[in-house]
């Protein structure tokens, strides 16, 4: 009898646990529905951008960008209230992945941060200006990783793996690599919202599916395009100190003020992972291209190809977190380096400065 009742108790406990989990799931679903129905509070960048593009619910949509640039614009099918909220949420995620600017319990980014690991990196650091960087005249800028331009190139072959990549899969790679985080499920709202935003930009800019636009990726700088002097660590370190360290910090740890990332980290724990597409050791032409096109802000184009390659080479030697695919040993080694290297390099720098100050002028 005792055995029977114990078994019954165990069964009852199991069923209660399952029932509890089911009701928890129902609760979470309802929460999520409520969040998706509530109005989105936009970040300043997103507000300016979406206002400029005239995003509002309605039966038709006509892009103000196209009207301004060409004087005419095709009339497109409009967006529903739900579409508008999805696009707004997508823009918020791109501009402020970490939720630093979110108010009211950052409800609209209800699960973005879960996938980002100890990082201050936001999408907009690579996808410049919330994924749509333009100059003062409203021209789209080359090599700024425009999200609309990458959306129209979605479902193309990935040149690294040879697989067909959907826009959602690409975003999953961004979570793993560029933000050194974890991969959301492919059907997650997070990915759908960002896709909605990217698609909206493509529509607003009237980009055509399958076309390759210059602002889509980064124009790479191969060694052949430089003076073929070879990439140099010392030169890179020197240029970095001259041109980059004032923002990214002497150790590359970036600048965070008032809980907001002012300048992103390019080294250390908060930086992107070694698995990133920006892994200079593997793809040593992409990062120089990015630097030449987008850095330093306000003085873009002031660095020549060789300088960009040197900086990228120097950055590739700084310790960053290992990606999940590199295995536990690499992860432990990188963690160790991130602890050991900064004080060592700081000490070496101080020695050098001391020597320089003692040197006769």
């Amino acid at each position, binding site marked *: 009898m005792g055995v029977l009742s114990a078994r019954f108790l165990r*069964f009852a406990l199991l069923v209660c646990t399952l029932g509890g989990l089911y009701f928890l*799931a*129902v609760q979470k*679903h309802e929460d999520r529905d409520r969040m998706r129905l509530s109005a989105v509070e936009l970040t300043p960048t997103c507000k300016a951008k979406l206002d400029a593009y005239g995003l509002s619910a309605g039966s038709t949509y006509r892009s103000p960008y196209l009207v301004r640039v060409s004087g005419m614009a095709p009339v497109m099918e409009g967006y529903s209230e739900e579409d508008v909220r999805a696009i707004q949420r997508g823009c918020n995620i791109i501009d402020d992945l970490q939720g630093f600017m979110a108010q009211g319990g950052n409800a609209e980014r209800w*699960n973005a941060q879960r996938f980002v690991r100890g990082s201050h990196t936001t999408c907009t650091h690579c996808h410049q200006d919330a994924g749509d960087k333009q100059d003062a005249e409203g021209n789209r800028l080359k090599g700024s990783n425009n999200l609309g331009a990458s959306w129209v190139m979605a479902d193309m072959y990935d040149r690294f793996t040879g697989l067909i990549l959907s826009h959602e899969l690409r975003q999953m790679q961004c979570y*793993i690599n560029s933000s050194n985080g*974890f991969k959301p*499920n*492919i059907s*997650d709202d997070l990915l759908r919202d960002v896709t909605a935003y990217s698609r909206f930009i493509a529509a607003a800019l009237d980009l055509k599916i399958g076309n390759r636009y210059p602002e889509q990726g980064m124009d790479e700088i191969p060694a052949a395009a430089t003076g073929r002097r070879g990439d140099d660590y010392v030169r890179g370190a020197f240029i970095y100190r001259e041109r980059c360290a004032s923002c990214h910090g002497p150790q590359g740890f970036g600048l965070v003020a008032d809980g907001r990332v002012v300048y992103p980290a390019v080294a250390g724990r908060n930086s992107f992972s070694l698995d990133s597409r920006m892994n200079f050791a593997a793809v040593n032409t992409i990062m120089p291209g990015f630097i030449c096109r987008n850095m330093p802000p306000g003085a873009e184009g002031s660095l020549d190809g060789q300088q960009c390659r040197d900086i990228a080479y120097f950055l590739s030697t700084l310790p960053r977190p290992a990606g999940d695919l590199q295995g536990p040993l690499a992860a432990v080694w990188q963690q160790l380096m991130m602890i050991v290297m900064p004080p060592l390099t700081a000490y070496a720098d101080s020695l050098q400065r001391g020597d320089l100050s003692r040197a006769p002028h």
Partner: protein
Amino acid sequence: MNTFSGAIPQGLAALRGNLLVGLTLAVVTLPQAIAFSTTLAGLPPHFGIYAAIWGVLFTALLNPSRVFSGGPNTTMSAAVGITLLPVAPQFGSDYIGYALTLILLAGLVQMLFVLVRPLGRMLDLINEPIVNGLICGIGVFLIFKSLTSFGGLPINTQVEWPLWIAWQSFLAVLEIGNLYAIQIGMITLVTSLAVRQVARLRNWAILVGVAAGTAYSEYLSATVGLQNTLIEQIANLSYVGFVLPSMPLFSQEAMADIIAILPGAVTLALLGLFQTVAAMRRMNRKMGSFTDSRRGIFADAVSNCVLPFLSSLPTCASFNRMWLIHSLGGNGRLASAASAVILLVLVLFLAQWIAIIPMPAMAAVIMLLGANMINWEDIKPHFKDRRESIVFLASFLSVLFLDLFGAVIVGSVLAIAYSKWEQAHPNISLSGNQLKIRGNLYYGSLPMIEAMYHRAIAREGSVVIDFSECFYIDREGIRWLKAAKEAQQAALTDRRRLDDRREVERRAASDGKRRTGRRRDKPDRRQRSEF
């Protein structure tokens, strides 16, 4: 031994009994086989069904054990999926080609274990805590892995740290899971659990659960509509029954990927062999009989070399099914063969019914099987010994923290380390200047013995080494003994020699035969065993 002995039952009654066991086995295996191929291996459902038909038939014919039953296996199916995820997109034609190549390679590796005897002997070093640790770890892993299908979510296409992915999947199911899918999964789970409480229906629990889940899914389809519920079904089984011949992929372009999946093939082979050997060992012990586990390895190797050409999952022995046959009083070989034929007939006539089974119900089946793999009764004894518990935990955690290949490597290294550790720590006692060694005197144990020896020399000036109770001395041990003797600080005693001589002489006298010519420098194993 005649390979086919035991296949012929005694009388018609036994035949009927075995047919009934075969029917039970077929019905129990069917939902599992489908779940293995769809949710775990990422292959079409007929792969699992063919493994349950042809795989079971081959292994039944090739293994002479009266209780042996091979067939599709949870762990091996999961290993197929895990190995291939980074190589090709699931359910595509390339994926199937790679899967067949992987299974064939695993079969060839297993064949190596049959042909190279010492390799096969290595499997005997794998002890129970390691196998149990692997099985428990994989059980936990399977429960987590089936979460996404349980919640009706697409499966993630890259493999990272399994525990973190499991947690993410759990949260994803809570937040964005398809509620209809969750309901179907829950109904399958609860029904199976409820039916399991009735001892007589225990073996049918999964089938009843799947039936309940399917019935609910059909109800939902009728009321809400399949286009609104978005429930994935098994579907498309119409052609099963005819063998779909298939060819592993060995093209020039695929070579890079095939090399990449080689460690996976070794893992697959080893996982199968570990389980076969462990299951046969356990069955031998439970039944008090003995069948050489090499027979099982042979059956596995041959069937896994043939099955890829028949569109089938890999097979290995299944302890659960073997125990089921035994408890129902069946003759393993005939019952297995009967189950294969009955399953073939069932699938031929019930394909349309099988096609409507929803995937969340299949995921629930995997969860139940994963939970079944964690058997506290099997694990408990390991925690009574510190060393065994460490080995068990290391093996268990390595599945959860490393990938399966890493876990298998850790398991093998642990097994060798464990056996060497046993040998390397002889029981040495030092009383006065008497150094008594019990256990093995060989290169592994010498450092410990030497340490003790030098301590005795330092303290006493001389030492008497008593190695009467050494069972084995290797060349290095002999060299050391010789050096110790030559240093004139040690005297060697071997009391056994005197005893041996007396015993042998006593026997020789009683036999009327002279054995005095035997050399006794090296103790003889046969003589020792008689003392």
